[in-house]
């Protein structure tokens, strides 16, 4: 496995992280945590995860490399170490993943000095949970066709419309909001706002997913009032800003803290172990050459994803700065989906057993996880849209609009 050569400060910090994470790992929750941060709905889990994130922030594992005036710890070259160690320690995820992963990079790139000073610190401590208000019922893959309107009235804006697939909307204090200031300009008529969820005009209604989970929401905005100081960047610059936010979502942006969950390599290993432990027709599934071949095909893809990520940083052979990063969302989500489907196949009939069935392997996580992989291949730019982007931006083919 590859390793960076670390300088002394980095080595020391790495040791600190390992020690600290070893000593401060939180105990179990009363009811099991959902597989991903976007599925958290229990108040118990919210408190537990918020406290855990705040603690990690206090210890310096979040906002490690950011300036002190924005609540950061003011270091250089330590964030990647903190994030890697959080990942490696397999501790609970950070609940404020939208705040950390999207609001922070967006405000750093496009926010005013005031916005940065006001909004960044409570993101790190999870005092302010953030959600994202981009998609609408009629604007999914074609995000820029969004209809939620923003009308300027003096020093504030009045917002009307509705948003959908809003993870954490039920907990959030703030929303990253895209709204249309000009009906006649598809891409140039969108403005980007920071919207207070406490506004009386905002209603949040949970959506049930096929898994039965309800972390997604519809959000209705009725005469919501937003001060002009909560606008990000210029009027009409919303599309440009949103694209940079989505790029962060796709992992090409600056990290401020591990968001994590399980790595594909770990999940792959779990499926191989599952195959070794599952007996069918008189032998383990792993001992069946056909299943072994299918597992190795999948293993090859997970390893390729890891080596792809490594290659991104090697200029001589990366084929251009964005070629591999722009693949990571589509490849990652499709690998995850096929890997989970493969796990169902390994389990055979017992894949029918769901969460809380006493006989279900790993408490039904494979069926649950499989269904959740469709969130990955559909939202944040579906696989179809990703392939358009790759064909157009990387290979220079004409735009399919």
């Amino acid at each position, binding site marked *: 496995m590859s390793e960076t050569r670390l300088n002394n400060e980095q080595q020391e910090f790495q040791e600190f992280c390992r020690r600290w994470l070893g000593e401060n790992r939180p105990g179990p929750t009363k*009811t099991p945590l959902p597989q991903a941060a976007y599925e958290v709905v229990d108040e118990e889990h919210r408190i537990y995860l918020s406290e855990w994130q705040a603690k990690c922030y206090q210890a310096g594992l979040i906002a490690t490399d950011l300036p002190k005036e924005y609540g950061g710890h003011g270091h250089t070259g330590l964030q990647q170490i903190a994030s890697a160690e959080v990942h490696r320690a397999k501790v609970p995820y950070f609940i404020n993943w939208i705040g950390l992963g999207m609001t922070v990079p967006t405000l750093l790139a496009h926010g005013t000095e005031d916005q940065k000073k006001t909004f960044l610190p409570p993101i790190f401590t999870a005092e302010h949970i953030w959600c994202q208000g981009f998609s609408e019922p009629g604007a*999914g893959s074609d995000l820029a066709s969004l209809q939620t309107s923003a009308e300027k009235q003096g020093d504030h804006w009045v917002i009307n419309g509705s948003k959908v697939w809003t993870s954490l909307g039920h907990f959030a204090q703030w929303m990253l909001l895209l709204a249309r200031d000009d009906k006649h300009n598809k891409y140039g008529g969108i403005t980007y706002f920071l919207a207070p969820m406490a506004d009386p005009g905002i209603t949040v209604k949970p959506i049930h*997913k096929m898994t039965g989970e309800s972390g997604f929401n519809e959000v209705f905005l009725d005469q919501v009032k937003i001060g002009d100081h909560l606008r990000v960047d210029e009027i009409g610059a919303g599309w440009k800003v949103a694209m940079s936010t989505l790029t962060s979502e796709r992992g090409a942006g600056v990290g401020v803290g591990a968001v994590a969950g399980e790595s594909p390599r770990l999940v792959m290993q779990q499926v191989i172990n599952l195959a070794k432990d599952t007996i069918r027709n008189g032998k383990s599934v792993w001992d069946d050459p056909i299943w072994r071949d299918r597992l190795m095909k999948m293993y090859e893809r997970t390893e390729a994803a890891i080596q792809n990520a490594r290659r991104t940083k090697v200029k001589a052979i990366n084929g251009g700065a964005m070629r591999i990063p722009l693949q990571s969302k589509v490849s990652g989500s499709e690998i995850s989906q096929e890997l989970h489907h493969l796990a169902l196949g390994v389990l*055979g009939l017992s894949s029918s057993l769901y969460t809380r069935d006493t006989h279900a392997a790993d408490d039904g996580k494979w069926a649950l996880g499989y269904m959740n992989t469709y969130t990955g291949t559909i939202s944040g730019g579906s*696989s179809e849209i990703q392939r358009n982007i790759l064909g157009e931006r990387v290979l220079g083919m004409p735009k399919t609009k």
Partner: protein
Amino acid sequence: MSQPKDFGFNEDISMLKETFAKFLTEKQPINTLRPSLEGTEDPYHGATRAGFFDKDTWQQMIQLGWHAVAVPEEQGGIGMGLVAATALAEEIGRFALPTPLSTTLQACFLLRELKSAGADQLLSQIATGESVGLAIYGQQGSLNTDSTDVMHDAGTLTGTSWYVTDAQKLDHFIVAANSDNGIGLFKVSANQPGVTLEPDRIVDLTRDQACLVFSGAQAETLCEPGHGEPGLKAALPALLTLIAADIAGAAEWQLQATADYAKVRQQFDRPIGFFQAVKHPIVDIMIQTDATRSLVYNAACAFDFDRDDASRCAHLAKSSASDTASLASQCSTQLHGGIGFTWEADIQVYHKRQIHSEFMFGDGNWQRAKLAELI
């Protein structure tokens, strides 16, 4: 014997299929199912789900005689073959119908192979409207016919049958049980002493599933110890064909629902079906579904008219069906976009049924391994 060119799809069977489809179109089974699911959705806290089926619908089906399609006339049934039963199974899949009929049809074809007084008796009971299912799996879920976890001794059963489909809907079970003399098949009833039904919490919303735990349950012999394996083996082509037909029907629904959605959902100022990234995968569902459908009709026809070729044809049908279940589910959910993974969309109901069916009676790999032995 050779097959008729028309897959045995004569006037009677065409009419049967059409009438049954019309009946289910009026029922819209998912709308009836939905209220029974309320409060059970949440995977962490949801209430236990009952093995729902619409009892009025079932009574009407019995009055119309569909429960007895595959019961021989000698036992008071209609005496049709697998071609007819497969026609029903395909429509059951297409409407994702929660019903005791699926397993009862399976039971008929197993019982017909046993040619015993007990089996004939149970067929007569089916003819009067009682429902029956199969309890043939051990915990491994292997289809090896010798893999039961139930022991038979002096007329009583001890042990557990696993993955019993639709157990909560059924009156009787055909249990595969082992003994010193080999596998036998036995009848137990749902509410008799010594039989405990432990429902599984499963993904599929349209079926239920359970463990049947036997503690010295009295069992009627349907097939003597040692004769269970040949009986199951003879019936297997029918069982494979019925589940493959269910998948084919469900896939046809997934295909049409996705094509319909692609015609109305607008993005980039056009119905999404305009875009080849949507249109072509839907066409691929059709190509794959048509392959399965044709192999299913062929397998049913082979069972009725050319029994020597039935195993080969049935493994082909279920192998193809397992792949169809997976492809049609993946594509139909993906192409529905965000809607596709909501609880409210019916597309998820089919997706869950299909990934359950995919692994029933052996996955694709297993079918192909068996097939290769016959080539």
